[in-house]
């Protein structure tokens, strides 16, 4: 079964048809997606600005990672769920859209960036060491997430 077959099968699902044809379902999913994205980005900005050292440097880094990253993750689950449902409405068009593919690639990059920070730098960052690396990871994260929002907006104009 090729990718095209999979996508065509997805597009033919009753759920896909319901989302594609309903007058209110798609805008509702979009609204929930916006709510989720703003919470993902809003909470990650808090952590990133602390990592970069632009805000609240007197408060320990752990105070932000423990309090705000759970919000990032919960909101990300909602964003991924609503995003997948919107994808179901037109899977063939989305997979052929360069902005959609770039957005997925950047989401992967955001995950790798977070994972690398956690593995290699976080422990030292909590002790106030590796300031340069900490700053670089924060800056990378901020850049990636702003680009994710921009690409999401470009999908809307090109799909």
């Amino acid at each position, binding site marked *: 079964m090729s990718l095209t077959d999979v996508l065509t099968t997805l597009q033919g699902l009753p759920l896909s048809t319901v989302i594609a044809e309903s*007058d209110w379902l798609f*805008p*509702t999913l*979009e*609204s929930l997606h*916006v*709510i989720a*994205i*703003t*919470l993902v*980005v*809003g*909470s990650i*900005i*808090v952590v990133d600005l602390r990592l970069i050292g632009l*805000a*609240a440097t007197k*408060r320990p880094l752990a*105070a932000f990672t423990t*309090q*705000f990253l759970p*919000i990032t993750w919960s909101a990300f689950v909602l964003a991924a769920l609503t995003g997948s449902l919107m994808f179901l409405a037109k899977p063939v068009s989305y997979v052929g859209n360069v902005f959609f593919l770039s957005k997925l690639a950047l989401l992967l990059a955001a995950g790798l960036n977070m994972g690398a920070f956690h593995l290699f730098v976080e422990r030292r960052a909590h002790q106030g060491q590796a300031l340069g690396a900490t700053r670089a990871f924060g800056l990378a994260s901020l850049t990636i997430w*702003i680009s994710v*929002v*921009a690409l*999401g*907006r*470009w999908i*809307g*104009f090109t799909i």
Partner: protein
Amino acid sequence: MLNAFAAWLLHTPVTAFLENAAWAVPTIQTLHILCIAIVFGGAVFINLRIFGLIERDEPVATVLGRFLPPMTIAIIILAITGALLIASEPNRAMFRVVFWVKMGLILLAVAATWTQRRLILAGAARDGGAATLSVRLVAGLTILLWVGVIFAGRWIGYATGWPGSPT
């Protein structure tokens, strides 16, 4: 009067620019969403603190003082980018009921946030800032209003203009 304003706006250089530069509208919308992230995120974080769900080691007034200034700047940028989005298609948003519902909800949300600030600062001066029932009620109301603003904003793109609106 609204028709005359839209007709005037349509022939301004701003509209001409926004219609011709394909990258302009998505860029403005991206900025608009990033600022929504700051305003809505800030509102949610302040309210999670009020309900004791995050940052329990920080006073409510401190968390409020951290998020309110960037939220205020973001609101100003939202007004500017929002005005530019109207100018990009003058015959659209202003002639839809849901656009004016959104404007009304924004005024209420800003008023609720301001009330919240007053209650919290008064509480902090009085007894160290225990979250009273009124603070909690306003907190819940603020979030509901911002969620309403986001839904109404998305619906502007789908609603049709009222009878007699320009095309």
